[in-house]
């Protein structure tokens, strides 16, 4: 590595082990590491020599990037194509209020430089795909999975197995998290744990189901710890073990993972190249199905116009009560999706019915249920209460 701080006087320059040297400022900066015998000067130089790729600069990526940078990991790669959004700031501590609207990569690079100017940041402002994953991952020693969706998790896993790179895994939902280290020489991989993803729509994402803001902090710092242990070759990494964290009960529990001899990635090695992960995760099929199942729609502007005209409309909100509490459209009635079938018995078939949810997906399901139950005058509010807020009534809070 040649990008070390050559302008600074260096110490320990007489090593011929190929590891970079540390400047005097770095020696002082890392002194609390250097005085741990298990890390020491050599360990710190190994960290400086290390190339770690973070897939995702979001909830998990935030503490990862900050701690790995502070710890002196020499090169941090970041893959993220997203832009900082206000709803990210509740947990993505890599980004600040001033960064809203900026690319996460730009914001992350600034923040990492501020934490530790000795870190070299390599940004990839792209979605990780089957076409680019091998090229991006190839130049790194360790890959850390901090993505937020199943297709990218399977893609990251398979690419790591094909390239023989350890995959430091972390995943979160609401109050619970999981962490492990996959795809080491002897250990299991993500597919050994979950051979197939759940069908789209069954497991809500954090955007749909929410996540406790500090939870990515808990899990991301565990991933950072595992990454540093792998670089230093110390301790017992989470290989062959899955850590389950429950923030509500503060239960940290590990279960045993085994390499599955029939795993198509690391067992039989039937997977010789990257596949179409959107298709593997059923997303293309679900999108096609959604198009095929299209339901009659009404836009928020049209709805507002019809209400202004005094049309007799039954506006039904199929979200959950806690969402209703955050915001609701005046005049709407709350009938959560799970109870729509029962409630159908009490609805007036002769009235026009408009159904809405947060973004239009759940209400489309409700519209299909009602149409199957013989209701013909029923519409889906396209874009849900979110677009209602955007297009009709900005005083309606968005969430």
């Amino acid at each position, binding site marked *: 590595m040649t990008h070390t701080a050559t302008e600074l006087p260096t110490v320990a320059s007489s090593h011929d082990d190929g590891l970079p040297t540390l400047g005097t400022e770095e020696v002082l900066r890392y002194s609390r590491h250097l005085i741990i015998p298990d890390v020491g000067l050599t360990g710190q130089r190994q960290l400086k020599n290390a190339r770690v790729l973070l897939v*995702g600069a*979001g*909830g*998990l*990526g935030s503490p990862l990037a900050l701690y790995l940078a502070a710890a002196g990991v020499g090169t941090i790669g970041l893959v993220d194509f997203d832009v900082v959004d206000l709803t990210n700031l509740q947990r993505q501590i890599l980004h600040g209020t001033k960064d809203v609207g900026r690319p996460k990569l730009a914001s992350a690079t600034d923040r990492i430089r501020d934490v530790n100017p000795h870190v070299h940041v390599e940004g990839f402002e792209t979605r990780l795909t089957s076409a680019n994953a091998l090229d991006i991952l190839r130049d790194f020693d360790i890959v850390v*999975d*901090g*993505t*937020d*969706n*199943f297709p990218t*998790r399977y893609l990251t896993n398979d690419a790591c197995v094909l390239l023989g790179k350890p995959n430091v895994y*972390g*995943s*979160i*939902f*609401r*109050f*619970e998290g*999981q962490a492990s280290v996959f795809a080491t020489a002897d250990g299991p991989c993500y597919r050994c*744990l*979950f*051979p*197939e*993803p*759940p069908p789209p729509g069954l*497991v809500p*994402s*954090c955007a749909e*189901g929410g*996540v406790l803001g500090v939870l*990515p902090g808990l899990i991301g710092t565990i991933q950072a710890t595992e990454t540093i242990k792998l670089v230093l070759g110390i301790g017992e990494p989470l290989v062959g073990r*899955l850590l*389950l964290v*429950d923030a*509500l*009960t503060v239960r940290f*529990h*590990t*279960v*045993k*993972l*085994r390499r*599955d001899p029939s795993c198509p990635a690391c067992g039989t090695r039937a997977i010789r190249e990257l596949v179409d992960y959107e298709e593997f995760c059923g997303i293309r099929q679900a999108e096609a199905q959604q198009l095929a199942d299209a339901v009659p729609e009404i836009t928020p502007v049209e709805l507002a116009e019809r209400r202004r005209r005094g049309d007799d409309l039954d506006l039904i909100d199929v979200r959950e*009560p806690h969402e*209703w*509490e955050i915001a609701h459209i005046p005049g709407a009635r*709350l*009938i*959560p999706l*799970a*109870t729509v079938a*029962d*409630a159908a*018995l*009490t609805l007036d078939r002769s009235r026009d019915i408009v159904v809405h949810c947060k973004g239009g997906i759940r209400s489309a399901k409700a519209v299909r249920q009602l149409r199957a139950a013989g209701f013909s005058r029923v519409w889906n509010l396209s874009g849900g209460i979110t677009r209602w807020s955007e297009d009709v009534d900005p005083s309606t809070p968005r969430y």
Partner: protein
Amino acid sequence: MSRRVHVRVPASTSNIGGGFDCVGIAVDRWLSVAVTLDLSRDDVCITREGTLCELDATPDDDRIIVGFRAACRHAGARAPRRLRVRARSAIPIARGLGSSAAASVAGAVAANALLDLALDDQAIAGIAAAVEGHPDNVAPAVFGGATLALSASGSKALTVRPLTVSTELALILAVPDFPVETTRARALLPSTVSHPIASRAAALGAALIHGLATGDAGLLAAALDDVLHVPYRRQLVRGFDAVVSAARGAGAYGATLSGSGSTIAAVAPRTFAVAVCHAMRSAWRDVGVDAQAFESRTPARGYALRTRSHSLLKRSPLMPVTLHLPTVLAKLADGKAIETRGSTVGEAVADVAARYPSLAPRLRDDTGKPYPFVTFYLNDEDIRFHGGFEARLADGDELTVVPAIAGG
């Protein structure tokens, strides 16, 4: 050789409007108790989990032990001195949901099974009611569903009969964050009531029974407006009037104190159950009270017992095990740790699936096979490497469900 029994007993609501002191309904929140005769000890030891953590009663004062000893006394048996009791409850304490009646029943049932006392359910109910003083909570805890508990005047004899509840009705319980002490609630009641009040109470009692059976809106609305205790006790429950009117506004026929409070119970058409839950919780929040509200699948069953005697040589086929659920699935059951049993993992999962229909499709597919995205661990070992759902269970095994999640 040691013996152990497991008992599950439901919560219950009582004093439902016109059914003061006689009508009770089993509620889908459970107390689980495991009692072991442990000859290696020389005392009684209790571990408490869930809502029971709030209790600090000594073992001698614990309702489970009191019920256990009362059953022994009734049957003329000597109560064993060496007992190990593990109790876990999802029933809110001191909220008018029959937590202590459930404990007394659990103790009596455990004693009956463990010591072969040969008591029938009527006798169990009588024993627990005598200990407890609340036959209207004890009866549904024993028999399940809705019950009428009639104490013969001047004697301890108890007559219990099941009541019909229309399947169109939902029972909603809104539980605030503050307790009401039963003794204090009792002290507020007048020692006598006037004749007009008494005759109105008789009419309301009849209205309640017929209203529950038929779902008659007018009868239920009248019957849930009690005259015997709510007028005196509502002062103990901050926000009572607001919560009751919010429940009515959201579609309930009416609402009243559950037991002596602080829980408020509403009866509503099934369709409006969710809206009523929400309205009651919101109304309470508006007066600064944090509350949980839930619909009890009516009628909940009565107590369930499983018993086995085991030694190292002989293993019974249905092993009591605990299934641990992640928070997101726990909402579909009654807690994160479900006591279940089966000789294999598949049987235990099937038992849980049968008890919690909305949880079932999250655990296994339509044909009862495991999903590739939900992994089960048997004492921290992946079951797929031990025969999958055919993996054998042993007493006290711990099963953990790990679903795939993708958040980051």
